[in-house]
């Protein structure tokens, strides 16, 4: 599994390097997405040969993955053809991408911390950090947001709806 997963960034890096700053640079994101999809369809198709074959009159567990991966590869290749013939829209202007990744990082951190600190603490910290990251400059507001959500989720989800939220070392 790790080999296949590690293959994706490798293929994307290669495709990114091939695009470089040349003629197709304005289509970089589209090209990378198409490359990723082609890789995905190849992996699914290739791995379908290893699926256990319980043949049932012309159909098996391999039928659907092969059909869909072949279709995906076909349409993605057509999309690439359009990109290379200039019939595809260019990538949009880049926005605040670092902020997006920082946000995703904070969320991933909270997710990782859930097993250690529990739902309430990790979500509270996540809300605090996210509101600061997204531009809230009043600490009282950020703290109220985090505290308010903890209280709300405890009252509604834990007490009223009896949801067992992830617990950490403390609670």
């Amino acid at each position, binding site marked *: *599994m790790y080999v296949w997963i590690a293959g994706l960034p490798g293929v994307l890096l290669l495709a990114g390097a091939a695009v470089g700053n040349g003629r197709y640079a304005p289509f970089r*994101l*589209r090209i990378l*997405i198409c490359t990723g*999809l082609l890789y*995905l*369809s190849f992996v*699914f198709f290739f791995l*379908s040969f290893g*699926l*256990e074959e*319980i043949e*049932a*009159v*012309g*159909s*098996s*567990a391999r*039928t*659907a*993955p092969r059909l*869909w*991966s072949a*279709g*995906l590869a076909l*349409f*993605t290749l*057509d*999309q690439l053809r359009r990109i290379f013939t200039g019939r595809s829209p260019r990538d*949009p202007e880049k*926005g*605040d991408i670092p*902020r*997006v990744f920082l*946000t*995703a990082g904070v*969320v*991933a951190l*909270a*997710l990782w911390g*859930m*097993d250690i600190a529990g*739902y309430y603490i990790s*979500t509270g910290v*996540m*809300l605090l950090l*996210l*509101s600061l990251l*997204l*531009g*809230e400059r009043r600490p009282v507001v950020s703290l109220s*947001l985090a505290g308010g*959500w903890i209280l709300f*989720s405890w009252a509604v*989800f834990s007490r*009223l*709806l009896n*949801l*067992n*939220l992830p617990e950490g070392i403390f609670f």
Partner: protein
Amino acid sequence: MDTISHLSEGLGALMGPIPLLVILAGVCVGILGGAMPGISPSMAVALLLPFTFGMSPSMGLVMLCAIYLAANYGGSITAVMINTPGTPSAVVTSFDGYPLTRQGKAGTALGISLIASVMGGFIGIFILVLFSAPLARFALKFWPAEYFALAILGLSTIASLGGGRWLESFIAVLLGLLLNTIGLDPLSGVSRYTFDVMRLYDGFSFIPVLIGLFALSEVFNGIESGETVRPPVEPDSGSSPWPSVRDYLKLKYSMLRAGVLGTVIGIFPGAGGTIASFIAYDVEKRLSKNPDEFGKGAPAGVAAAEASNSSSVGGALVPLLTLGIPGSSSAAVLIGALMIHNLQPGPELFTKHPEIVYTLFSSLLVANVIILALGLLGARLWIKAALIPKRLLYPLIFAFSFIGSYAVRSSVFDVGVCLAFGLIGWLLTRAKFPVSPVVLGMILGTMIEKNLRATLMMGGYSLFLSRPLSLSLLLLALASVAVPLVRERRASLRRRQ
């Protein structure tokens, strides 16, 4: 007569404080969610899904459908008052709604949008009630070949309705279908692409994927475009007089036309309120004696957009409840909700759980009345509540997404799946690939695969062609794939000439 008695039983079941409170809560949340720019109806329904876990299946569905219906109206409030459509389908409402506000007629625009929404809602529900039971009875006679052909038609319509982006839609559909093959094979139980990871044996859970693709991807888009740092727009006072009954009556045919059109368009999988409102607006403009007024504050423009948008909800529920095929993104989320409550959408829902279906129909009628009451109470109130700064709203959406994804299987892994699909959805939308076909592909994947293989076992590929209904549906699917291809070819030939 059966329908009327079932409906009255359904209404009876709602006449208690708890069901009415559930509908009221759904409508309030829906209007608020719809009015908040950046929160689409499907996102509102997906985020509020965990609240229904502790409810009975019928109450859970009633609440989610009330949110769906109300969110479609809510989008028009900010479209009219501050020219910021709360939902994609309210974009058309702003074409004439905001010019009316700028002319000092915000009350007129708000009144028309409210009444048209409610009228459209009633038309959609009426058609839903009228046609769904006979269609479900008819669908009971379907063989796997017909179900397969129907699902393929559904997916091809979605893709072809992607307009200029039909190829991207096809790719998105196929990606959804492919991802759906992860997990145990539905017929033989063979493990596929699980790499012995236990959590993948059931495949990806729908709800985290839905929340990730619909909610988190939008949030990431908003963060990237810098929405969190922009100051909110100050709304108009909205205190100008509302229209008289005579003014509403002048628009009755516009509302009726748009309502019927919106319902019919809503029935087609993937079409939804946005396409319905664009088409209804265009039709109304063509039929108008004063087409030049459209875009400058024509009341008929507001009425057509809103009536078609709201009526599309009823339309989208027809294929969902009768065939198990979602008519819109929000309906796709509702399929997830049905599955969580162990209900299989499709014709058998009508035979096995008619009380749930008719309670749902009745609740839509009640929700529509509540929308009218809350809309009359004052749109200004909703606008104030809707203008929560994004820097506070977005973190809350993450927190809701955490709960929603986790609660389905009590799995932190699912929250990770939600985040991953949020990022995938963001990248796809950046590159102008639509995300709803991915979801619909994942939802319809199992149905397609099961019926494809069942048909192959029953008689091979020839069975698809020997059964007239299956053949017709497949031909229709083929036509819907061919239409954009032919259109594009013609356009390219014209360009060359």
